[in-house]
């Protein structure tokens, strides 16, 4: 890495990939955001190696031990234990898995739905566009939290239900952005060229249009992932999201609510983790947008 950067100034013309990388590295927000995000992802992936204890293992004799920096803290439980004597560090680390899983799965589901609709609307226009616009308007008129609450209350909460509900509710921004991006690309020469060369619609859409609007897709995806993670935390806090004993951060905050007067770290630790993750995703997303489409800056 050091060698490449050193040799770069001597190169007459850096390759496009190098240019892009430099632009990314020039974005402090992006570097910090991605850095934090990478750490959290690593923690989540390596949870079984990092977590000192089984996150589900309860010991009622060791309840609400404070974190190690308190007088009564112990290195056996660096972040203390919760109200059932489960190791808090292990639960926070495993909680990252749940949050990331939800963020990624929701984005995949809603991204697929939203992108398909947006592409169709932007490419075909006319009646298809009218129909998609109508669907988006309908969807926007439904408050996400309320619908999610109703569905979860009716069929019961579980990790996969939360993912599905959020996935089917959060495609609107994908659809809107993809629609306008496709409309722009649609009228460009290379699409016309592909059309006159006799390429099939599928080929044009997937081969010409999609790659050129992908940067927008990535930006929307990061923002939506952050919002999905927050929504899951909110639902779990209300007792209608992920169900115990799964270590979801929102659920941990909810369970710690009863202890906030006297053991505030129980609420502060998962709260900080959640805030940090959202912060990192948003920073990375913003940086990404600045690099890919600086014209989109507010």
């Amino acid at each position, binding site marked *: 890495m050091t060698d490449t950067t050193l040799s770069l100034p001597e190169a007459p013309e850096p390759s496009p990939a190098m240019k892009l990388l430099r632009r990314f590295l020039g974005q402090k927000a992006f570097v910090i955001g991605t850095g934090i995000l990478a750490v959290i992802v690593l923690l989540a992936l390596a949870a079984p190696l990092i977590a000192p204890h089984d996150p589900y293992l309860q010991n009622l004799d060791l309840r609400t031990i404070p974190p190690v920096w308190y007088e009564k803290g112990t290195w056996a439980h660096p972040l203390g234990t919760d109200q*059932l004597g489960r190791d808090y560090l292990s639960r926070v680390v495993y909680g990252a898995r749940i949050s990331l899983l939800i963020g990624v799965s929701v984005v995949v589901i809603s991204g697929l739905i939203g992108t398909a609709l947006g592409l169709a609307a932007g490419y075909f226009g006319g009646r298809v566009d009218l129909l998609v616009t109508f669907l988006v308007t309908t969807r926007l008129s439904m408050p996400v939290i309320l619908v999610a609450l109703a569905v979860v209350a009716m069929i*019961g909460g579980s990790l996969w239900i939360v993912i599905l509900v959020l996935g089917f509710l959060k495609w609107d921004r994908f659809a809107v952005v993809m629609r306008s991006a496709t409309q722009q690309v649609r009228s460009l020469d290379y699409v016309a060229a592909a059309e006159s060369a006799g390429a099939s619609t599928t080929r044009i859409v997937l081969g010409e249009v999609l790659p050129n609007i992908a940067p927008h897709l990535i930006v929307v995806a990061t923002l939506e992932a952050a919002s999905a993670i927050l929504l899951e935390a909110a639902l779990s806090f209300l007792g209608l999201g992920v169900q115990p004993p799964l270590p979801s951060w929102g659920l941990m905050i909810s369970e710690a609510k009863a202890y906030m007067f006297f053991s505030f770290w129980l609420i502060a630790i998962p709260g900080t983790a959640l805030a940090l993750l959202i912060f990192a995703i948003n920073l990375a997303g913003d940086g990404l947008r600045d690099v890919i489409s600086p014209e989109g800056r507010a």
Partner: protein
Amino acid sequence: MGFMRKAVVAGLASTALVSGVLTGVAFAGKSDNTVRFAYDQAPESADPFFNNVRIGVIIGQHVWDTLVYRDPVTNEYKGQLATAWRWIDDRTLEFDLRQGVKFHNGEEFDADDVVYTLNFVAKPENKVVTQQNVSWIEKAEKVDKYKVRVTTKQVFPAAVEYLAGPVVIHPNEYYEKVGPKGQNDKPVGSGPYKVTNYVPGKSITLEKNPDYFRDSPKPAAKIAKVEIRFIPDRQTQMAEAISSGVDLIMGVPKDQADQLKAAPHLQVVSGETMRIVFLQMNTLEGAPSPALKDERVRKAIIHAIDRPTMVKQIVGEGSRVIDTVCFPSQFGCTNDGAVKYDYNPAKAKQLLAEAGYGNGLELDIVAYRERNQTEAVIGYLRAVGIKANLRFLQYAAMRDIIRGNKAMLTHQTWGSFSVNDVSASTPVFFAAGDDDITRDPAVAELLKKGDNSVEPQMRKEAYRKALALIAEKAYAVPMYSLPSYYVAAKDLVFKAYPDELPRFWEMSWK
């Protein structure tokens, strides 16, 4: 830590104080002889027959009177609206009524009030919410102005206990005129306190009834006014207690009560209640988890849970482990002859392996209160290879699941409406009623025999056999009795009773 805690309490108290001042809450109940009490649920109606929450029972016992009064210390029956009673035959109780008692609206108490009330609540079409408290009544008849006879549908020796508890007497002329809705809008009883202000869902104010009859076993009240506010959020209640916005809260979770002990102006009192906790296991045909049909699985579940540690660490002082599904002081409740299952995770695993679930078993558990205790149970089950998924619901929703044969494990609690007789607890869940999800005919028959026999010894024997059979077949996990923690202003004199009924007529200031 000591310093930390004090600092935290002081900080909390000051913030809560500020908010208290801002919302105009008056301080110190002693100066105006008013007890401010907060409770987390609001009754759907103030009429005791049309709600089934604890606060309804509390209001009921203060605003109304019953025919008989059970002394909570000696468990002895004393005459309240009745002065004497006797069984005329197996199914007929005769009461001599007290003379000179007046309802809050001036209406005189006599046989007509008793006859009207009992006949009204006994009629299913009047849709009394607490059916199990009144369904035993066949009819009430007036003998003369101060004498009535009550007939039970079947032989029902526990009748006096019910008439000493949930079955209050309404003023007949008023009730006939306004009905249950009117009794909710403007409640009228004969009790030691009368309702002077009631905002449904928000608060109810009781003031001392100056004309309360002297000979009542409820002693003349010293506290002039009781302000009951319905505050659903536990943290708000605690903040109010810390800032002296309320003088009494009850049902405070153990951990929070332990912490509030640090506040110098508060006292924390705990006591056992009649509320028992147990897990039901659905063994009915078509139940969603056939595994529970296997006795070995059910036994494994009992062996997996460390009840003594739960009691010590998360349930709290005043609680005790039970081995049968009833409260120990209830007539007929015994663990004599019932199999005791110790905490033995190794044995639990072995039993599961024998039953063919050595590689794990997944179950749902429904629950509606004391969620931390349910989660502890889930943790213990997980340790022996049973993955239990929590479905935490409102009581009504959980009851529908149970009655609809969709439950697997249930985390049940039952307070028996403070009735000190097994007929109010075990048969509700094991005598083939709506909430029975094991439906063993032998158990049901024994329980019914206990409910409907006259001879006390015969009743006891029938209940003993039924309870032993439930334990032997491991139809349920009897867990423990629940304590109730009260947090009160330090200068309030009060006593905690197992029936979870704070008696404001007994309270005073230091």
